């Protein structure tokens, strides 16, 4: 009899427990934020823009899959409170994929916002940190996914495009936070912007950085975000990186410089690179380049000024030879390798010299120097990030062309005018 009573009590208790918590929240009771934008406010500290996912639209595939709202607020979390008053569901950041700061705000310093996100359990370290060349609000409003109905996946894939373009970088929140607090290198964020072009006739070469680099015409990476000559369904774009000194943005780099940064930093994977043809300056050779080995850095202090050396080893496959010159020949391949090395080295030195006045050791030369010290106090006395401005750079680039693609020689087209490559 006693056993039956005990069994009955256990069943009643279990049934009560199995109903789950009284204060539980179902997935559909939350408003999932996928992008957060922070601008300077007009009347208060911040303009906070949230892009919310609309799950029912994502599943049905009809209509816009996101909704955007902006509030003026003194702080990030105060803004959340305000937004929670007029949207029907509670705001949740666990699926937030990107935080965008306006350039204006980033130049004033964002470390306090980064700390607020790291401290909050809802923000994930894998979300991306970006700086908008215009306002963050404008960027988020224009970031409408085209190829992907799921906006979170769209952001994730877009911001990870550096893995096959090299034009931005790994700017996840954890990475940014760690670099910002490091005494041997500096943080960087993805540069984002909104494209102004409505028609391809409006394309303006003035929006490219090719002239200041000494290029004859714009190469694929010679643009900042918001300046790419393109017409597409979505106006938002990612291209280049923003450099930080501590928590303050101090400069920006275009796509090609971001690519050189990745090569020197060691996160470069692969991308297509156009090299001016050494035999025909009006033509290009297109290479599919990947990092052969991680770059090595070496720092020497001479007269209290750093001499930073880097060795970058790349491998490449030939994708296109516009001039038709037979670089695939084992005698000629060296010419192409040398030209590629020279082109990349020149770009890298230009990039590194640009980082110097910004005190932005984006490539982590300080790591090498730090490893030579035994005590933290001794290392701190070096004041590396201050000394970085006095740096001199040596870069050794090695490009090995491994494969010619699916063609072993370039035969010309036969025409009435003879052999032509056009």
């Amino acid at each position, binding site marked *: 009899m006693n056993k039956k009573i005990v069994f009955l009590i256990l069943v009643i208790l279990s049934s009560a427990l199995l109903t789950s918590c009284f204060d539980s929240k179902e997935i559909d009771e939350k408003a999932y934020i996928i992008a957060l934008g922070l601008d300077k406010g007009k009347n208060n500290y911040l303009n906070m823009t949230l892009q919310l996912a609309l799950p029912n639209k994502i599943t049905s595939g009809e209509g816009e899959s996101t909704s955007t709202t902006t509030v003026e607020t003194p702080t990030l979390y105060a803004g959340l409170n305000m937004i929670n008053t007029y949207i029907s569901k509670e705001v949740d950041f666990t699926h937030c994929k990107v935080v965008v700061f306006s350039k204006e705000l980033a130049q004033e310093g964002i470390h306090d916002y980064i700390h607020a996100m790291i401290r909050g359990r809802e923000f994930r*370290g894998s979300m991306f940190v970006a700086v908008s060349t215009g306002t963050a609000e404008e960027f988020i409003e224009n970031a409408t996914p085209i190829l992907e109905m799921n906006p979170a996946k769209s952001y994730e894939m877009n911001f990870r495009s550096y893995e096959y373009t090299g034009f931005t970088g790994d700017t996840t929140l954890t990475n940014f936070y760690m670099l910002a*607090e490091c005494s041997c290198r500096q943080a960087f964020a993805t540069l984002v912007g909104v494209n102004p072009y409505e028609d391809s006739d409006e394309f303006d070469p003035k929006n490219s950085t090719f002239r200041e680099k000494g290029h004859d015409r714009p190469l694929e990476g010679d643009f900042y975000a918001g300046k790419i000559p393109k017409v597409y369904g979505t106006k938002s774009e990612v291209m280049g990186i923003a450099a930080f000194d501590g928590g303050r943005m101090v400069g920006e780099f275009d796509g090609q410089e971001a690519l050189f940064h990745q090569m020197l930093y060691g996160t470069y994977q692969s991308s297509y690179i156009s090299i001016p043809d050494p035999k025909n300056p009006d033509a290009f050779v297109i290479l599919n380049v990947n990092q052969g080995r991680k770059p090595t850095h070496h720092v020497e202090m001479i007269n209290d000024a750093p001499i930073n050396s880097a060795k970058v080893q790349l491998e490449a496959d030939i994708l296109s030879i516009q001039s038709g010159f037979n670089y695939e020949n084992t005698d000629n391949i060296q010419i192409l390798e040398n030209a590629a090395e020279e082109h990349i080295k020149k770009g890298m030195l230009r990039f590194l010299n640009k980082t110097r006045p910004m005190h932005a050791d984006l490539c*982590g030369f300080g790591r090498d120097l730090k490893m030579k010290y*035994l*005590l*933290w106090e*001794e290392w701190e006395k070096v004041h590396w990030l201050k000394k970085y401005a006095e740096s001199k750079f040596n870069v050794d680039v090695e490009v090995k062309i491994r494969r010619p693609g699916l063609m072993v020689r370039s035969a010309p087209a036969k025409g009435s005018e003879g052999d032509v490559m056009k």
Partner: protein
Amino acid sequence: MAMKNKITFGSFEASCITITLITTQLFLNLPRAMMEVAWTAAWLLTAYVSVIALLLFFIIDRLYRPFEGKDLLDLGEHIGGNIGRIIVGIIVLLFLIYITPVILREFSENMKIIALTRSPLSFVLLFFLTGMIIASYAGLESIVRLSAIIVPIIAVGYLMIITGSLRYIDFSRITPWLGSGPYEIFVKGAPRISVFAGIILVYFLYPFIRTKKNFTTVGYASVVFSGLFFFIGVLIFSLIFQYPTGTESFLPIYELARLVEYGRFFQRLESMFVIIWVASALLHLSILLFLIAYVFKKTFKLKYYKPLIIPFSIIIFSLAIFSHNLLSAIELEKHFRTFAWMVTFLLPIVLLIIARFVKQPAKKEGES
């Protein structure tokens, strides 16, 4: 000692529960605490205190030879009769009653931060306390045998978190190699052997594991494996979170778990962390509550320990909510980790040395 004759278990089970009692700090704040002392050389400090703990246990093990099957209370009785036993018992009780509420509070508060954010603290405390009470009622054998099942699972989960975060390591983060300096590490850092405070359990398990061989095996296995887990955890944490960023991290291993990500599919491994974390916390706290009741019973020669469980639970609960906030509880734990070595290592050594010089008085006829 009615229990002594009935309950015995193997050295594997005893090692598992001791390792749990020692290493649970890893899931709280150990990597950060080590980094606060040695800065970039936190891994070195961890290796150093592990070696010291091993040496001290070697000494204790040697000194224990003539006292097979005796725990610290038996040694106290051997030296000073009832008074000796009561003094040792009170020292150990104070030691356990100090740390148990602190750990209970820390686990509950952390649970509130990472998972049960909206539940009242008292509910989370009671959640743990209920588990502790049930386990203590079930007795030592149940706790120990359960630990033999759960500890390997916890170990696998822990190693998964560690290996999953390996791709973020950067060796420059543990440089400069000597961090805060040799004096801070090797002199000021020495009291950090208190991280092995949980080894105290081995002295009380001795009557249950019976033989000197088992005692030696359990002791060495506990120190070596705990030291290894500590070292791996602190090293990997230091290689991922550089100094001083690592000193900001509230729950270091949880932070590592949050980093684990392979592609878009394999993410959010911290949910696994919560499971292994609660399992180890429950085992840790259960054995502490049992130990308090058991030591009290034996110190004052009571017949049963079970009636003591609820009163001690109430005391622990009251003390747990005594701290104003989590930071005060952490501060209390810091003090404990500075002085705990005195009870864990110094007290047994002193007792064992004195006991060697004390002759056991001849037992009167009929005395058990």
